[in-house]
């Protein structure tokens, strides 16, 4: 098949996918989105005759727009732009999870620092303030006191981009020193890992230790429902353990999997490419969110 890979930086994850695709004899076109122009009519030349285009853009903003253009040109795209749009925005992500009945941390969104302070005081301390767009654990704040809350809110309001004036406040979940990442293809788990750290942030990008874990039935059900809620696709579903259950705090749409591949019992890029082949064969159905 003819696969396009949209990128602006080739990480270990993209190399794993490229290697697997090429080993299987697929024709791969690497498309550096920094060099592309997207018009309203004909697609760029690099998009011609592709069976499928895979979005691996590092930048969320590019990912959101380039997938929308790919869909506009009727080029099947993974992930679907609606999935990208929902997953790129933590507030929208929380809303669709809640609407699907997926347990997710209590969350409030406010637009002024006064309203945000009321939300924070409502949750009590500690609670968590997150940017609505962002990843790798950046600009996440665990707020332990009113003094800290006031300082952070003022900094965000004064120094931040307009998106930082959308205050996303969340309850602090007392997880057992780890959270769980499940990589899934259309809701079917490929592999899962626990990410452990002494720090309250347990992102692999923050240096958390990773280990393989089995996917239990409850996790499997939640991953399937969460995936459906955002429109399906190749996703990273993040869960936290809450005693004898789980809460899903977010779903990621341009999921990194190199850390998972090192601990998983399955060949992650091979499983992903199996799924990409199946998707390319039948085209990519519309996401319904």
């Amino acid at each position, binding site marked *: 098949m003819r696969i396009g890979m949209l990128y602006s*930086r080739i990480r270990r994850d993209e190399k794993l996918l490229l290697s697997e695709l090429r080993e299987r004899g697929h024709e791969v076109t690497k498309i550096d989105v920094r060099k592309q122009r997207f018009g309203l009519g004909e697609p760029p030349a690099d998009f011609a005759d592709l069976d499928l285009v895979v979005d691996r853009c590092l930048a969320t903003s590019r990912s959101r727009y380039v997938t929308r253009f790919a869909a506009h040109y009727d080029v099947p795209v993974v992930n679907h732009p609606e999935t990208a749009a929902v997953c790129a925005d933590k507030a929208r992500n929380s809303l669709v999870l809640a609407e699907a009945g997926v347990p997710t941390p209590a969350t409030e969104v406010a637009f002024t620092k006064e309203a945000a302070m009321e939300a924070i005081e409502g949750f009590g301390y500690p609670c968590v303030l997150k940017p609505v*767009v962002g*990843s790798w654990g950046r600009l996440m704040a665990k707020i332990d006191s009113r003094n800290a809350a006031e300082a952070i809110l003022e900094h965000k309001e004064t120094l931040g981009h307009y998106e930082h004036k959308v205050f996303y406040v969340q309850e602090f979940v007392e997880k057992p020193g780890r959270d769980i990442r499940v990589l899934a293809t259309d809701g079917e788990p490929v592999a899962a890992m626990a990410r452990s750290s002494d720090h309250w942030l347990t992102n692999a990008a923050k240096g958390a230790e990773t280990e393989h874990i089995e996917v239990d039935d409850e996790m499997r059900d939640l991953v399937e429902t969460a995936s459906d809620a955002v429109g399906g696709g190749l996703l990273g579903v993040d869960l936290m353990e809450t005693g004898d259950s789980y809460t899903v705090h977010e779903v990621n749409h341009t999921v990194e999997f190199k850390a998972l591949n090192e601990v998983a019992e399955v060949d992650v890029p091979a499983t992903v490419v199996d799924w990409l082949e199946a998707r390319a064969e039948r085209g990519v159905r519309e996401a319904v969110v």
Partner: protein
Amino acid sequence: MAECIECGADVSLHDDLEVGEIVDCATCGAELEVLATDPVELDAAPELEEDWGE
């Protein structure tokens, strides 16, 4: 091998080098983007942006 555009030191490269990949200069620590592989051409990597990552 290629030359670091920041410090001029030799940068060792993997066999499976890809255009778009980032390599580090072991001498000065600069992040370098691979612009071409045959011959190898390097440039300074773009700065980290706020919306990068998964």
